[in-house]
């Protein structure tokens, strides 16, 4: 009976097992025959992930092709605290050689995040305690260090920490020249988007178009070769070539720093512009902020943000207007005292003098405020405003730089009895250094005002170059008028030849000095400026130098020598032929 019973039980169990086996086989057959394709597809789908191929941001280069800003590939090192908690280092033996963990040949000694930190810290150049604290958590994603160079990342790859430590490709913006044009270049944010300066202004051009790649990845995210199904190449951003000459920029920055120290000025700034084309060759100041730094992103360059009354430099604009309108000729004769009262307002010259017999050229040479007020008697307010506007005062420069101030020029109907006359000698309105430079460049360019430019061309990764669009040129005064004003400005330069001349080259210039509000809110601060055209016989460059509170007060004695230093460098650098002697000077006295 027992045998029969055992046999029955065995048969029952065998049947049950057979049934289970049949069900399992049936299920297997079902999966293989009917669901196999879907399962395989689902597995492939889970392995197939689209990966973004980051486009590289374009470079910024100077006129000589010198790289001012470029992007380099860097890595963000990421840790998984969850995986780090389970990490047990493998001691180095003969069997585990090449796949083990050791610190300077000795066993790690600990496990978990502490072990990972000890292994990784020397390579990352971080404190193991700090690193261990970051890895001691519950999440699976913690950024350990950003902007790690590729060489360091490759060393990390060999540490045997796969699964615990990973690296994400990123881009870092590098500015090899540091403080050269720092504020002008600006910077980018953490996502690589331009947020200040030229980086922001040209962001659309510099930014490329990301691509993608769809492939199956392994356990650690590595690509399984031959599984790439779709891909789109990234389009790198375009390179922006500036009109700025890095050599000139460096020299101007140096000359300004030297000048600032020598005259103990608050700050100094300068603009160098090619008079015939409107191209800006240098834009410098003494603030020296490193490109890409928070300071550079927060503070636009002084040349565009700082506005000031141009002082006597404004007389060139008044003179141009009066000559163009036929109000006066350069040879008109005046007897000029050192002070004059008009409409109850008294105006005086910078220095006391007896009544002088000056022509219009003489009034400009001696920078006489009184003479300008006398000459402006028949020069209507509307014309005064019209010519200031035509020369670009109170108008946007069109460069598009972030933080640029267009200055201040109110309409003539708001001018009081004093302002209507102070505008004749550069007071009562404000301008920035770029606007002022272009106003003088208009005179140097035979009366035609060019649109200033900072961008020379844009080129793509294939080297295809596209010239930047140049703005419209406008005639402001006749060529003959511009020539006469130039002549008068040469007489000004002659007067300062002992302090601001360039050997072998004729210079046409104008100085300026203006009182501006100081830190106490009163007119306790001084702006000294100088703008000059060199060579005067065949104008090529216009240089403007502006200083705040220099010791020496008058622009001719402080900004003038800095102008001469820059002018001399430009003549050497661009190998310009020396000027022929001056033979056509308009008399300044009668």
């Amino acid at each position: 009976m027992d045998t029969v019973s055992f046999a029955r039980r065995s048969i029952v169990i065998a049947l049950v097992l057979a049934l289970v086996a049949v069900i399992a086989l049936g299920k297997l057959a079902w999966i293989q025959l009917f669901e196999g394709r879907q399962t395989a597809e689902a597995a492939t789908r889970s392995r197939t992930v689209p990966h973004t191929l980051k486009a590289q941001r374009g470079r910024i280069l100077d006129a000589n092709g010198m790289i001012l800003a470029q992007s380099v590939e860097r890595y963000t090192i990421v840790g998984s605290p969850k995986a780090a908690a389970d990490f047990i280092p493998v001691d180095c033996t003969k069997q585990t050689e090449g796949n083990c963990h050791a610190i300077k040949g000795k066993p790690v000694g600990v496990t978990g995040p502490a072990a990972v930190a000890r292994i990784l810290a020397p390579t990352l150049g971080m404190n193991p305690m700090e690193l261990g604290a970051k890895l001691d958590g519950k999440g699976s994603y913690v950024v350990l260090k950003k902007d790690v160079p590729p060489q360091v990342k490759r060393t990390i790859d060999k540490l045997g920490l796969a699964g615990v430590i990973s690296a994400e490709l990123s881009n870092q913006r590098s500015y090899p020249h540091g403080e050269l044009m720092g504020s002008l270049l600006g910077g980018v944010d953490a996502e690589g988007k331009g947020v200040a300066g030229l980086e922001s202004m040209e962001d659309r051009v510099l930014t490329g178009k990301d691509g993608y790649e769809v492939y199956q990845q392994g356990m650690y995210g590595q690509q399984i070769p031959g599984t790439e199904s779709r891909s789109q190449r990234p389009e790198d951003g375009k390179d922006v070539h500036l009109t700025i000459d890095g050599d000139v920029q460096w020299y101007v920055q140096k000359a300004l720093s030297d000048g600032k120290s020598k005259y103990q000025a608050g700050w100094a700034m300068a603009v160098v512009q090619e008079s015939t084309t409107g191209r800006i060759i240098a834009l410098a100041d003494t603030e020296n902020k490193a490109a890409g730094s928070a300071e550079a992103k927060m503070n636009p360059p002084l040349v565009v943000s700082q506005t000031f009354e141009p002082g006597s430099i404004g007389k060139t604009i008044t003179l141009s207007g009066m000559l163009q309108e036929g109000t006066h000729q350069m040879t008109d004769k005046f007897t000029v005292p050192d002070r004059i009262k008009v409409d109850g307002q008294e105006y005086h010259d910078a220095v006391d003098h007896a009544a002088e017999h000056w022509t219009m050229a003489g009034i400009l040479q001696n920078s006489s405020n009184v003479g300008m007020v006398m000459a402006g008697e028949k020069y209507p307010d509307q014309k005064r405003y019209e010519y200031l506007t035509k020369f670009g005062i109170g108008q946007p420069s069109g460069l598009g730089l972030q933080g640029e101030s267009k200055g201040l020029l109110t309409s003539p109907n708001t001018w009081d009895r004093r302002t209507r006359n102070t505008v004749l000698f550069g007071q009562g309105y404000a301008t920035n250094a770029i606007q002022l430079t272009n106003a003088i460049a208009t005179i140097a360019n035979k009366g035609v005002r060019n649109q200033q430019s900072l961008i020379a061309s844009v080129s793509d990764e294939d080297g295809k170059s596209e010239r930047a669009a140049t703005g419209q040129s406008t005639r402001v005064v006749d060529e003959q008028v511009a020539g006469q004003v130039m002549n008068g400005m040469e007489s000004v330069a002659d007067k300062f030849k002992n302090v601001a001349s360039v050997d072998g080259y004729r210079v046409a210039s104008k100085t300026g000095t203006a009182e501006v509000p100081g830190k106490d809110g009163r007119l306790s601060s001084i702006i000294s400026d100088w703008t000059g055209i060199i060579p005067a016989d065949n104008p090529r460059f216009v240089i403007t130098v502006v200083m705040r509170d220099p010791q020496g007060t008058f622009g001719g004695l402080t900004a003038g020598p800095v102008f001469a230093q820059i002018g001399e460098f430009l003549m050497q650098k661009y190998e310009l032929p020396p000027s022929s002697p001056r033979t056509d000077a308009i008399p300044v006295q009668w």
Partner: protein
Amino acid sequence: MTLASSARSVRSRTAPGKRRPASQAEQRRARLALVDGGRSATNRSLGGRARRFVSWAGTRSTPLIQFAVALVFLSVCLLGSLLLRTQMVQNSFEASSVQSSISKLTQDVQDDQDKLDQLQASLPDKAQQMGMVPQRGTSSIDLNGYRPSENMQPQNQGQAPGARAGQH
């Protein structure tokens, strides 16, 4: 070449059996003309030979050969496919490895270029620290109205014509 020639000989053996009635000589000649065409340059080409091989394999007298040929063909295809697939995967790995090397080298070039740019940028400051100063002052020679002295002329005569022409 061997396969083609044997194909022709088999065809020549099978042809006489169908040509026995002497009264149909003209028709048979017409068929022979088709075979003549097979001897032309076109039929000696690979396509022509393949067509003839397929028609030979399709004859009822050679079923075993047909089977063997099909088997060999399938085996070759299978092996070829396996080989090609293996080679593709191998190439894919190589391509992936080369691509990775290119990326590494590009990164290294970028990094070195950046270092070079930084070093170049620091040159003027370093030169100044060494006591070097930018050149100051200009010196120029005005050759307007210059005439070479008499005793210089014999020396000038020895110069190349182009050099003298350049002075004018």
